[in-house]
């Protein structure tokens, strides 16, 4: 029967659905693909589990970095004594002593308390008294104290004499950092090969799936690419920058792999943490990634991009100041530095080192304004590449009191002006153009919106104060249509309008008197609200001539 079944299997069932070959009775002893994949899966899970443990350990260390480990009474004990008493083998010691002294369970339990008390008080000579007071069997007290001294107290005395090397509460600095070459380290500490040194998994040439970026796997990949044996620096460089795995490395990771491979090839020494069985990499921190730069870095970078060489020097020196490094200005005056300072950094950045530069009033400026100003600066820079460097440095200073006049000169020289907001032309004949030099001198911009920026408002106030005889600047001008920001414009452009209003009022009053009490119910607003794109056809023709043309918030005074 059995042979019949065997023959059936061998003839008709060559391979089962799992891939096991039933034909060959020895097939079970050979590793099948199923078992291979099962082993791989187990290994993958085990490695993943270890990684999770590592990550949680790192988090745990951070979380409990400043946690209290021991009660105060124990924390004051010499760390090595404490560690000695906390070794599990003390349990056996106490058991042995209690056996030798014939102690009961209660007496046995008292031994630990006695030893801890002695360690705390450091009264090593009073052990007999302690034993007498705590152990019921007074007859064996001397024997117990003798045994305790011999096995435990003697050691405590020795350890107490050692100098304390304690990093933080409860943790002794016992990290032994060795210097070994990679091959030696791998021989001594096999676990070291499992240390992950880069973030991305590796693709090995002769392995189908990505593998962990452990030291072992990196070495495998290195040898797969360049062959076994030692390699030159150039080869290593090529591997690090052009190999499939090397291309994906970040600079810091590349530095780590480079150190490791150099040690592999040239037997250079690496710092090994023998306790954790890891290589201690001391590489420079990674430079900030483009795009993730901080706000503080932005203006300097932008300016460096556009500024001529001389200005780059200025900027680099400014950066040195900002990071608290000694000044390397050379012959530059503080005025020049402050000029550069004013232009190149937005107020927030300046506030970092405003103590060094006395421009506190600018700290409260709007960031957006500063950015726009900067963009204007850079466009100026681009348009004035032919201008001398020293002159250029002055031109960018909006805070400069002479800036407006210089700008006007420049504008008259170049009728078209390029900015980040597009090209706009400036009418030479008309001083009051869209670019108002006076406003620019306050570092503000004009917008078509009815709103006024606070700085603009201040500028208007100042100009009004300077010209008390002309309360309304728009009335004074004799240009085309002007914008007016106030919504109750009719009231403000008084003489003509008020005259008209008075006339209207008098007419209305006379009509209402005529109509008697019935008409008295009608109330009149002091304002005449005129919707945009609306012209009152019924208004008197005499007034129509005087009335300014109104369109939205635009008043045509011509």
């Amino acid at each position, binding site marked *: 029967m059995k042979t019949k079944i065997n023959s059936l299997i061998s003839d008709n069932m060559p391979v089962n659905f799992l891939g096991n070959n039933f034909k060959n009775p020895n097939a079970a002893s050979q590793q099948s693909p199923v078992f291979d994949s099962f082993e791989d899966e187990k290994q993958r899970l085990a490695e993943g589990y270890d990684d999770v443990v590592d990550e*949680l350990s790192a988090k745990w260390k951070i979380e409990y970095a400043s946690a209290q480990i021991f009660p105060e009474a124990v924390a004051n004990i010499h760390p090595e004594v404490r560690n000695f008493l906390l070794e599990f083998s003390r349990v056996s010691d106490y058991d042995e002593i209690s056996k030798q002294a014939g102690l009961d369970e209660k007496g046995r*339990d008292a031994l630990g308390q006695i030893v801890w008390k002695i360690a705390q008080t450091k009264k090593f000579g009073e052990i007999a008294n302690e034993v007498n007071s705590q152990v019921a069997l007074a007859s064996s007290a001397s024997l117990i104290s003798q045994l305790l001294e011999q096995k435990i107290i003697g050691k405590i005395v020795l350890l107490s004499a050692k100098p304390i090397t304690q990093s933080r509460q409860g943790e002794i600095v016992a990290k032994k950092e060795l210097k070994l070459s990679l091959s030696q380290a791998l021989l001594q500490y096999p676990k070291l090969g499992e240390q992950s040194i880069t973030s991305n998994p590796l693709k090995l040439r002769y392995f189908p799936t990505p593998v962990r970026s452990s030291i072992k796997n990196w070495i495998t990949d290195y040898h797969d690419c360049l062959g076994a044996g030692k390699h030159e620096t150039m080869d290593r460089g090529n591997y690090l920058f052009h190999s499939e795995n090397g291309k994906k490395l970040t600079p810091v990771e590349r530095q780590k792999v480079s150190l490791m491979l150099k040690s592999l090839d040239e037997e250079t020494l690496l710092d090994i943490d023998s306790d954790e069985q890891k290589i201690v990499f001391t590489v420079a921190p990674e430079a900030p990634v483009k795009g993730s730069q901080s706000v503080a870095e932005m203006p300097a970078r932008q300016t460096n991009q556009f500024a001529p060489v001389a200005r780059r020097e200025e900027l680099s020196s400014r950066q040195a100041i900002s990071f608290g490094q000694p000044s390397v200005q050379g012959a530059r005056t503080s005025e020049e530095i402050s000029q550069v300072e004013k232009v190149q950094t937005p107020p927030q950045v300046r506030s970092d080192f405003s103590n060094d530069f006395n421009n506190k009033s600018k700290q409260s400026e709007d960031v957006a304004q500063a950015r726009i100003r900067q963009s204007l600066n850079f466009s100026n820079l681009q348009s004035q590449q032919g201008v001398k460097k020293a002159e250029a440095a002055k031109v960018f200073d909006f805070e400069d009191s002479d800036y407006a006049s210089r700008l006007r000169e420049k504008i008259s020289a170049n009728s078209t002006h390029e900015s980040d907001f597009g090209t706009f032309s400036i009418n030479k004949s008309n001083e009051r153009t869209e670019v108002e030099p006076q406003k620019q001198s306050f570092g503000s911009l004009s917008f078509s919106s009815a709103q006024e920026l606070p700085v603009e408002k201040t500028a208007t106030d100042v100009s009004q104060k300077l010209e008390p005889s002309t309360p309304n600047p728009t009335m004074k001008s004799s240009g085309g249509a002007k914008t007016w920001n106030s919504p109750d414009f009719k009231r403000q452009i008084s003489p003509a309008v008020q005259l008209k209003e008075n006339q209207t009022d008098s007419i209305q009053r006379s009509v209402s008197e005529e109509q008697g009490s019935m008409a008295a119910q009608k109330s009149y607003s002091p304002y005449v609200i005129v919707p945009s794109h609306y012209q009152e056809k019924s208004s008197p023709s005499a007034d129509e001539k005087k009335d300014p043309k109104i369109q939205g918030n635009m008043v045509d005074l011509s």
Partner: protein
Amino acid sequence: MNNDLSALEEFDAQRKIQFPYLLHSAVDLLAKKKIAYVVLAKKENEILLVSPSGFGESAVIAGLTEKNIEYFAKFAPREYREKLAEAIDNDYSLKDIWEVAKAMDEDLDGNATRNRLRVKKVLQYIYDNQIVFHF
């Protein structure tokens, strides 16, 4: 995360590491025994990754090894110690620990006392060094 685990596998691993006492609802002896086996398999560097409240569970204490309790006594923060001391001071909890250890021995052999001896030593160690567990 630098491992090859899927999100679900990673979550399982985290749960096993941090909350082994929640893997099985510890209402019956079998579940408690399973938890104790999970804790028993832990290495020294993993034992403190179990959340502090776990050390108030009798099943977790029943799974502590000599090495693990030594590591715990040397490095565990205050809240861990307090939870353990609380559990040890409770008679019901002590009885439960003993029951779990006994059940674990029964799995090995009828006469085996390996787990009970281990638990006895661990409890003795805690008692000898109770000064470091009581705040």
